[in-house]
């Protein structure tokens, strides 16, 4: 028991002292109150037991709290980010700048201009991403929504991979590389093999899954066998992946005949996801695959023994080990699965949206996926919803820029702010005066115990 632990405990206790009831004593008393049993003596805090490994507990709980936080915090984080984004839009608007010069004479001019700027930008964002009321036909009106879902497809798949890894306690930064390798393998099967309808697409999907799974599994294997940190390994493998695809696009096998451009031949018709609602829309069957993948991830996590193992490893590896669950095996399995899902995202890109392989095939999906998984609290359906939201940001951002002149960068700012607010739940709680978890409902905090020295 090192001597710096108690220092930390007390400092913490002091910081939170006036606000929250997380000291062992209180936590147990809360539990006692909850049981509302008059005859039973008050339950006890494990006097020395709880503080055997406080540093481990602390680490686990901070990460677990951020990645599996409260749904309300996610929603409010989006609201806050949109408000902050709106203020930025207003601040950078020329009309607002002009009217601000006589702000003290007629403040309503500037405030009005600011409101107009922000609301018009967001209306354009909505029209570009969900429903365009100015469209001439129903198809035109609904077109933005299908665009949103098209963009959301790879995001959802990749984010599911990140979310699964989160649940097993791993920070998978490598979705980008996994998408790229998955896309590369899928594209190669798509343009160099010539197979009948059905079978070809199936093999393309499989190739994408295998490519991603290999790239992700490598991370898991290195972590399990050597203890290498998954964050560093997966970031480095991102570089390897992008440079590998850049090299591949310089060799004839990946180039169009007679061309030296770094762009692959188009995939065969048979290798591509068919459009979902005819040729008018870009939305393809990849979206259905994304829905199926979400369902699969939900089942895996909540209804299968593998998911039980992964969640146990993620929440408390010590208890998992003691219960006979192999932590290292869990790391490999989850990274294979995470990579496979990212590979599906790569497939959706080459076999659906882009139809060719370029070095930019993954855009920034792999990194946005981290945000999406965070926003979705690492639950499969939460991630799905967050993916659709981010798809909307991307699809609508373009319309916003063309219609109102608001820079598309503002969307990036909003996305970044969402992450910031999610990573700092106390900030959101303070702004909205939400109670600390455990205060209002008299429910003790789950994992935040700092070990009570009763």
């Amino acid at each position: 028991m090192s001597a710096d632990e108690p220092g930390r405990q007390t400092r913490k206790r002091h910081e939170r002292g006036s606000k929250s009831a997380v000291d062992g004593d209180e936590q147990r008393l809360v539990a006692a109150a909850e049981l509302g049993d008059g005859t039973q003596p008050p339950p006890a805090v494990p006097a020395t037991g709880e503080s055997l490994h406080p540093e481990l507990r602390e680490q686990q709980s901070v990460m677990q709290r951020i990645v599996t936080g409260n749904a309300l915090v996610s929603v409010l984080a989006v609201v806050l980010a949109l408000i902050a984004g709106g203020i930025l839009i207003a601040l950078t608007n020329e009309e607002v700048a002009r009217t601000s010069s006589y702000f003290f004479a007629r403040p309503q001019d500037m405030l009005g201009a600011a409101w107009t700027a922000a609301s018009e930008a967001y209306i354009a964002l909505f029209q570009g991403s969900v429903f365009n009321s100015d469209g001439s036909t129903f198809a035109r009106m609904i077109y933005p929504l299908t665009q949103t879902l098209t963009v959301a497809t790879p995001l959802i798949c990749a984010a599911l991979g990140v979310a699964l890894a989160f649940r097993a306690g791993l920070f998978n930064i490598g979705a980008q590389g996994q998408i790229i390798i998955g896309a590369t393998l899928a594209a190669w099967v798509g343009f160099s093999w010539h197979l009948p309808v059905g079978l070809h697409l199936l093999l393309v999907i499989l190739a994408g899954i295998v490519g991603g799974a290999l790239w992700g599994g490598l991370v898991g294997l290195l972590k399990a066998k050597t203890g290498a940190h998954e964050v560093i390994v997966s970031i480095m493998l991102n570089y390897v992946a992008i440079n590998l695809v850049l090299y591949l696009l310089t060799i004839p096998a990946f180039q169009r005949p007679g061309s030296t451009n770094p762009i692959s031949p188009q995939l065969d018709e048979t290798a591509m996801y068919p459009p979902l609602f005819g040729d008018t829309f870009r939305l393809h069957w990849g979206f259905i695959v994304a829905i199926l993948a979400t369902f699969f991830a939900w089942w895996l996590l909540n209804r299968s023994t593998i998911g039980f193992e992964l969640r146990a490893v993620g929440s408390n590896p010590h208890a998992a080990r003691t219960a006979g669950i192999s932590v290292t095996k869990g790391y490999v399995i989850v990274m294979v699965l995470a990579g496979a899902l990212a590979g599906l995202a790569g497939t959706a890109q080459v076999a659906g949206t882009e139809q060719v392989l370029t070095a930019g095939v993954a855009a920034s999906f792999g990194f946005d996926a981290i945000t999406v998984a965070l926003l979705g609290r690492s639950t499969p359906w939460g991630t799905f919803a967050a993916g659709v939201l981010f798809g909307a940001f991307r699809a609508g951002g373009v319309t916003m820029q063309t219609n109102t002149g608001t820079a598309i960068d503002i969307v990036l700012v909003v996305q970044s702010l969402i992450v910031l607010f999610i990573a700092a739940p106390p900030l959101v709680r303070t702004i909205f005066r939400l109670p600390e978890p455990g205060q209002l409902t008299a429910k003790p905090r789950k994992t935040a115990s700092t070990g009570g020295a009763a």
Partner: protein
Amino acid sequence: MGWGLKLELKGITKRFGSLVANDHIDLLVQPGQVHSLLGENGAGKSTLMNVLYGLYEPSEGQILVDDKPVTFDGPGDAMAAGIGMVHQHFMLVPVFTVAENVALGNEATKAGGMLNLDDTRARIREISDQYGFEVDPDAVIEDLPVGVQQRVEIIKALLRDAEVLILDEPTAVLTPKETDELLGIMGQLKADGKAIVFISHKLREVKAVSDIITVIRRGKVVGDAPASASTTELAEMMVGRAVSLTLNKEAAQPGEETFTVSDLTVLSPTGQRVVDGISFGIARGEIMAVAGVQGNGQTELTEAILGLQDHVSGSIRLEGRELVGKRVKDIIGAGVGFVPEDRSVEGLVGTFSVAENLILNRYDRPPFARGLAMKPGLIAKNAEQYIAEFDVRTQSAEAAAGTLSGGNQQKVVMARELSRPLKLFIASQPTRGVDVGSIEFLHKRIVAERDVGTPVLIVSTELDEVLELADRIAVLYQGRLMGIVPAGTSRGELGLMMAGMNAEEAQAQQAQAEAQQTDVEGGEE
């Protein structure tokens, strides 16, 4: 030094949201007294002391020092007012010397900002000599035994002119011998006019050293008792109902020896022999209890049996089958029930539901799973059955296990391990941090498991528990077996063995000591 300080708490109430952790607590601490605060874990003792030490702000009530109301904004204010606290876990920097630690936060400097420790050293020697602490100011903390580290903490407080010393569960980490030394030190400090607030739930120690005992239950003062009050009386005040402190168990009916450990050695990752050539056997229907001060190889011993340790040599055989080298999963499958020493770290997944925790090591076996698919219905039914059988107080089977009280968490772990036929049952610290009412229940379940013919291995650092449960007692010291003695062995003899003496020596010395009527070890018996 000093004339002492009168400290009074008046109507201290501390609320957390709707929850009342301290409810109008009055406490009068007089100079030259040892004032014990007795209460179960979770009764609100720590909260009260944190209020007194300035870590919490009271919701209501007043703190009076020498009849003058004061408010503390932090430990600094409390220290300035003459209140010092020795925490259960020491706040020392392991790689600093004693003098550096004592000076920390209060450093004297020479010209040019150089550290000046000479005064500190001198004062440490002074205090050390005055009270017979035997602390070398230049020793590095991590090289010192726990008992001495604790004295450094006391010196820290005394150097800051503390007149009231709060000792929070100070004996939890000490050997019986060190405990006696500490109780002696407390007596000296008292004679010197200091007031001592002694927080504990160990009745024996409280009775041995207190001038007055205040019992706290559920955040309220139940009453004061003199040190002459009987253990049963005190226990009843603490718990609020009659409790039987002694377990009425039948004599063991040992059968054949089905579990044997021979020449077991476990190396730590750094290559130290943390378990050093241990051999013993446990018969069916027998409880073997391992006694020892925490950190003497008990953890590694039990973990080695379960297959959690990597560098194991020797042999562990259960019903003829070798367990060394097997996977944890297979060892659990072979019928080993295991209650780990730290339930919240190794025993439970706090974010998992009670139902999930009840199948934590059987999630992939029928009837709870077929292939990869788990059976939520059967898992819920299993939970319902064991929540009822073990009287687990939880809102529902779906509540996160981390929200339960320590005693109820322990019941979940016990229920899981005892809910299947076992060939060996291992429990480390089976009742650590568990309320008295649940202790009774858990002990009965352990004895019941013995009575169906399972070999049982108990590891406990609480001598009381060892004496309560054991049919035979093995004592570990620095990874070595000091001997296996029968259940009736005296506390003094066990104490000597826990400090590194083998069984014969301990017996001889104990006999000698008793003959001389200068019972140094366990004098309060």
